[in-house]
């Protein structure tokens, strides 16, 4: 179960049809058939996933027209809802949820969208709760190198991450993982974000991000990682081997520092 925000009420299930760019219903789809004009595909009965709406306000009425013709999507998932698609979804009674990271959804996924609770469920996937902690020292962030045989994201680079044990609160899990993997001792976090969701095949990682400032700590690694480096937060995006969302999460947490 992934939590977003409820926009238009109702519950529906369907296969994902996903677009990577913002979408205008006016000109983007044939209202009597549901065929897309922007690429191959038909949105009728699908869970239609795209970052957000754009273009003419007439788009809301195109959505209504699709509904009248029985060709409306079963549900809509956006990253960020705007007026046109929100209006169209509500007047056409299409369940809609936003604030969902597009990266957790794949074309063809079987998804249940609940527009009343603002949640989605991707069938055949498993959610795992993890912590991911940024250690900030002298304006640089500690990045660990994962071994090639790691169970998740092998060979990639990440923050100090690990599973939250049953019954453990996320903040305690963060401090425990940091001690285990780096032998650095931290107290209360200096910045925290709401969970973000990262997809790795059939696993949805529910990632609880934390940021801890340290003065002069040097990491001593255990066997879970094979190397480390301190890198500038604005350079994280330049390294494709760093796991998804790290750059965004770190920079949002730095902005949230007191």
């Amino acid at each position, binding site marked *: 179960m992934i939590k977003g925000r409820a926009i238009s009420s109702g519950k529906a299930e369907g296969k994902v049809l996903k677009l990577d760019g913002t979408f205008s219903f006016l000109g983007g789809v044939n209202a009597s058939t549901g065929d897309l004009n922007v690429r191959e595909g038909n949105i009728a009965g699908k869970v239609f996933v795209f970052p957000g709406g754009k273009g003419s306000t007439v788009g809301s009425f195109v959505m209504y*027209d699709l509904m009248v013709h029985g060709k409306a999507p079963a549900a809509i998932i956006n990253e960020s809802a705007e007026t046109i698609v929100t209006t169209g979804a509500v007047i056409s009674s299409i369940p809609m949820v936003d604030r969902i990271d597009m990266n957790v959804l794949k074309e063809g996924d079987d998804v249940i969208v609940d527009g009343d609770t603002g949640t989605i469920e991707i069938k055949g996937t498993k959610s795992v709760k993890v912590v991911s902690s940024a250690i900030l020292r002298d304006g640089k962030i500690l990045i660990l190198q994962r071994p090639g045989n790691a169970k998740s994201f092998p060979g990639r680079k990440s923050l100090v991450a690990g599973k939250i044990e049953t019954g453990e609160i996320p903040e305690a899990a963060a401090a425990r993982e940091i001690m285990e993997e780096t032998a650095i001792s931290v107290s209360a976090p200096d910045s925290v974000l709401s969970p973000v969701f990262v997809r790795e095949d059939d696993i949805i990682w529910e990632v609880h991000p934390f940021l801890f400032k340290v003065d002069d700590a040097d990491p001593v690694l255990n066997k879970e990682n094979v190397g480390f480096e301190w890198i500038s937060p604005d350079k994280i995006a330049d390294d494709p081997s760093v796991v998804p969302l790290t750059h965004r999460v770190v920079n949002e947490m730095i902005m949230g520092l007191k």
Partner: protein
Amino acid sequence: MYLTREEEEILAGEEGESSQKAMELIVALGKIYGADDLVDITSAHLSGASYKTIGDGGLKYLEDMVRGGAVVSVPSTLNPIGMDRERWKEMHITPSFAEKQLMIIDLYGKMGVRTTCSCTPYLGENVPSLGDHVAWAESSALSFVNSYIGAKTNREGGPGALAAAILGKTANYGLHIDENRKPAVIIDAEIEGSVFSYSMLGQAVGMAIGGKIPYFRGIDPTVDDAKTMSAAMAASGAVALYHIEGVTPEAGNFDLNGLETIHIGNKELEEAYGKLNTTDDVQLIALGCPHLSPKEMRDIASFLKGKKKRNKDTEIWFCTSARVREECPEEVKIMEEFGPVLADTCMVVAPIEGVFERTGTNSAKAGNYLPTLCSQEVMCRDVSKLMDVVM
């Protein structure tokens, strides 16, 4: 978002389906814009009236709203439609378009909306007062009432404004909150003062500041000047509210310390003019965007009096509201020698594409929308220069 018990009941469907749908929409829009609660409104102005812009989906939506018993609960007016409801044949409108357009008008009428079909309801049919919360669509009209009158509205879309009209409430966010009505930039304007120069000023400012709230110095517009400037700024940028030193009612309320100042003079007006003009040769000259006021009707008629239209190939349309057309019989007589004085409609929402390819206008707003909504090349000049084409 906080809802009163009565509002919760409407959302739960206890007041019927159309009120429930309206509440769902207002709540959803309020949510995405971070509203804390709803606010009572005193009037609404609705867009989504032309069959050309709303299509069969919009028509079906309105039919279903009427079937569900939707009725507006505050005075509500309607934007221009795709044709003059009597003289549509003179506009080259097909009977099938006319039939659907008349159905749309009829449906709005059944919901209790006044179907005067004008983009300038603030000149007579629907006049808010200082401090009123309202829910207006039509970017030019809502900017005028926000700024020149000091009423409070966001940029509503068609269905959102209709939902607000049904409930008599809208979501309380954005420009309904005084804190958000502060200017963001000072415009030091230098213009010669004709209506056309205000249109170009609006164009230039919209291009320069996008959707910010400007505070003007150095201008003293009449109602007509403000009407055309509001329209231009909303079309070239997304300006929904502006203040003018010594002119608009809220201008004195703000601390201007630290605001950036942008100078708009000849150079910027020429850039704006250059951006709008794409042709020197037109098949249609259309005046009245926004709809002509009584004063503009008098000015145009006195300019045309005694002159002859020599170029028979270029059509001229004068667009105004039915009320103003009725108020100005002498002017209408003179203008009709040149072309029809049309009510209810304008060149932007009428289906002129396919009939004309090149249109002349004195409106920067029309100059922005004619290429995109009507596939036209545009000549944007003041009235006397436009009329040179046909003299």
